[in-house]
């Protein structure tokens, strides 16, 4: 990496070199590998394949652009982006498009749709980084409290959509930033204890359909043709794949439509079915490698903002990966979250790649 860094110090920088010098090859390799996993499953449906390729293309354009922008610019713009994201969430609550009973989408002129909560995936880590950057580390109690407010504000708006899953995941990512910021371990322990104590309260606050999802997790056979269907079919797909899988394109659970959402939220079940334990393990290893590389970049970053922003982006990314796979394996209730960079649909790929653009920017602009 040092070479990259040294070269970027050179006086003459061609346009061509700018484009490529702000990439981190290792991270890029990891991302491409992950994306490839998705493509291998999605290729059999041409429309889906084209749609995904399009999104990946746009995502990489965003990545390239985001990587060119130096961290200080992000630092300057973060409050505005965050405030804008909050505003969009507010607008969504009133003007959003209702799909399956929840308002998550904003429709732009021309029929384009996007989820403001996707934007918050980037904005929350950036905002926390921005805030703690100004406050100094380790954070004092009131700084932590303020930081939690920055997480809570969008989370509440997203819960109202309602999209509890996304809200929880963003919160988890945000809390990761707080942990990285250096909050004392004993506070963390206290928070965990508090959360455990509050769990019954959370149960009371949950809506009936949400409780059903939790109940279903523990006893999917209670309603195998209804609520339990997804989780039963998903576990069946994964389990029947065995060690080496049924072979590409041989997954009967997905090919014969027993597995719902096989292109989107449950895509890892297809990987498990067709590529087996070996395939999923490989995917997990690549994800861990991406996480490791990202966290390494964070440790190498100069400045609190850059470190926390990158760390937060990476943790948010990881939380999505973990929760999605845990859901497919029947360890978590069914929350509608995509598997990062693999699932088809939505704007997730684009916002994620944009996020990685920021990560790369941080890494290649350490001399700012």
């Amino acid at each position, binding site marked *: 990496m040092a070479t990259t860094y040294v070269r970027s110090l050179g006086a003459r920088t061609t346009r061509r070199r700018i484009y490529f010098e702000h990439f981190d090859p290792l991270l890029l390799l990891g991302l491409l590998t992950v994306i490839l996993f998705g493509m291998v499953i999605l290729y059999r449906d041409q429309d889906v394949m084209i749609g995904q390729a399009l999104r990946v293309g746009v995502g990489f354009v965003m990545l390239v652009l985001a990587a060119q922008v130096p961290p200080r610019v992000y630092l300057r713009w973060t409050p505005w982006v965050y405030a804008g994201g909050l505003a969009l969430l507010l607008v969504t609550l009133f003007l959003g498009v209702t799909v399956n009973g929840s308002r998550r989408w904003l429709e732009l002129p021309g029929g384009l749709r996007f989820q403001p909560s996707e934007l918050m995936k980037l904005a929350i880590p950036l905002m926390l980084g921005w805030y703690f*950057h100004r406050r*100094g*580390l*380790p954070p004092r109690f009131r700084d932590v409290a303020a930081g939690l407010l920055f997480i809570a504000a969008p989370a509440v708006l997203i819960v109202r959509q309602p999209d509890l899953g996304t809200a929880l995941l963003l919160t988890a990512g945000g809390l*990761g930033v707080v*942990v*990285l910021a*250096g909050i004392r371990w004993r506070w963390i322990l206290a928070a965990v204890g508090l959360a455990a104590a509050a769990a019954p309260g959370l149960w009371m606050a949950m809506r009936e359909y949400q409780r059903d999802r939790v109940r279903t997790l523990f006893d999917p056979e209670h309603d195998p043709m209804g609520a339990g269907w997804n989780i039963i*079919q998903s*576990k*069946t*797909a*994964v*389990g*029947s*794949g*065995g*060690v080496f899988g049924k072979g590409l394109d041989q997954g*009967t*659970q997905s*090919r*014969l*439509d*027993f597995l719902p959402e096989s292109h989107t939220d449950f895509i890892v079940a297809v990987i*498990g*079915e067709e590529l*087996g*334990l070996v395939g*999923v*393990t490989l995917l*997990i290893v690549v*994800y*861990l490698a991406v*996480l*490791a590389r990202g*966290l*390494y970049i*964070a*440790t*190498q*970053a*100069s*400045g*609190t*903002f850059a*470190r926390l922003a990158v*760390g937060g982006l990476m*943790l948010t990314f*990881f939380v999505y990966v*973990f929760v999605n*796979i*845990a859901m497919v*394996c*029947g*360890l978590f209730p069914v929350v509608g979250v995509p598997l990062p960079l693999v699932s088809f649909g939505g704007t997730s790929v684009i916002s994620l790649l944009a996020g990685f653009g920021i990560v790369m920017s941080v890494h290649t602009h*350490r*001399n*700012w």
Partner: protein
Amino acid sequence: MADPFDIHGLGTEGRAFTVRALVVFLVALAMMLVLLARLVQLQVVEYDSYRIRSDDNRIQVRALPPDRGLIFDQRGGLLADNRPARSLNVVTELIDDLDGVVEELGALVDISERQIEDFHERIARRRPFEPVALRMNLAEEEVARVRVNGHRWPGVEIGEENVRYYPLGDLMAHAVGSVRRVNQEDAQRLDKRRYRGVKFVGRLGVEKFYEDVLHGDVGWQHIEIDARGRIHRILDETPAVVGRDVTLHLDSFLQGAARDALDGRRGAVVALDPKSGGIRVLVSNPGYDPNLFVTGIRSDLYQELASSRDAPLFNRAVQGRYAPGSTFKPVVALAGLAAGVTDWERTIVDRGEFRLPGRKRVYRDWSWTQGNAGGQGIVNLRKAIYRSSNVYFYDLATRMGVDALSSFAAQFGYGEVTSVDVADAVPGVLPSRAWKMENRGDRWYDGDSVNLGIGQGDLLVTPLQLATVAMVIANRGHWARPRLLRESGGAQPGFDLGEPRPRVAGVTDADWEALVDAMADVVHRGNQGFRENGTAWFHIGRDDLGYRMAGKSGTAQVVEIAQGEEYDEEALDEYSRKHAWFIAFAPAEDPTLAVSVLVENGGGGSSVAAPVARAVLDAHLRPRLASL
């Protein structure tokens, strides 16, 4: 504060962050290890059960119902065929609002309430995604209407299946029986494996008795389906084994002749081949069209059939129980000979009246009418038969006693089912002392013997039983148990021919021949003057038959006629009139067909039933004579 120029990020704060990042990564690693452990659990430890589960999802076993074996008559004529019929089937899994769709379909094809009920009953028994028939036997235009509109309802389809068809319709209804659609009751009774996917089961007659032979073996198909139940491919297949064909002794030609001879009257005709016991004719009139029942009969039509006073659904030939009347006399005669209480020479004077010693009650001859009580004059056994003298047999039965008579008659199969393969045949009643005590709670009186002597009282027979009696006499006491089956393709597993029955004991060959001669006189003895002609001669014996026929008429009372009252046919309701019987066989020397004819409420056996018997024997013998 962070130092923006700490380019390596290795300040105090940076180091703290690095530690944190490392801890966080280790936590993430641990979480991923949990996931991996879970994956190992699913994909390695529990692999087998999920593999099975996944196969259960996609692989379904579909039953391939076998084609039912065909039924032929002895000339090779088809009695039961399989014909493709189209039905309106529904895959209920693919339909949200079933009632709504059924209602909409009702606008395209006729669907009765009962069919909807049956439909729901079948739904309860079907396998997932198995199409369930809502209406069967669709007409061509109904098929077209459904096809045009079918796209509106995924899950509604036109199915084609083989359905039993009886080409001869009502002619063979009672002889061959029929299949019915498997209902709830059947489903519980039948072997689930052998009948998977099978929609019809034999319910009556040959179809019922030879169900196991005709049914065949269900085949199996493993098919791969998707979550919507669509079939993707056939994985493997064990073809169904077609049921074995069955050839019967029945003769459609003779059957038709018998039915025509009955000429619409209620009654039954049974004809047996004396050599084999093969049932050549089994008519119960009126019949019904069994095809109506195969796929479910309209309820109003069924009500009409079931409640008709003519009882078309009732198989008189094997289930109708009637007093045999004078057709019993030949058996009484043989019993008397066997018991040694009479011989062919002994005579009595028949004045048309009989009294038990010391009793007042008068038993009369059949020829008795008020103002004319002549009787048959001097009567020996032969004349007692061809003139059907009641008085002779009153006397004979009384002197012989019930024990000798009842046990002798039992040798002819009275009171039991001797047929081998006639479904639902009933045994009738052969009274005896023990029987009377058990069933009437009373002892046997001499008056009972008097009545029994002329085949009245508690003695009850079916037309099949009387045909059997005629056959045993035709065989001079030798037995062949009546049977329908002539042959079936291949072996006949478990087909029980029954214990061979011994020749009727106690009767000499000369007695047999004399009896046959006496019975031939019933038909052929004519132009002999007042009360000297055979009872049936005037009705069937006056022209040249071309063969010698032996017979015996019988007339069975339906209502009790009070002492001293006249039986006035005109005054009686049609359904209270006497039943007419005639049993016969021919050629008398070496019989090839034995017949019993019953005409319900027909009146005189000789005048009404005998011509039917002759028509059947003519149909049987005349074509052969012509070909000689």
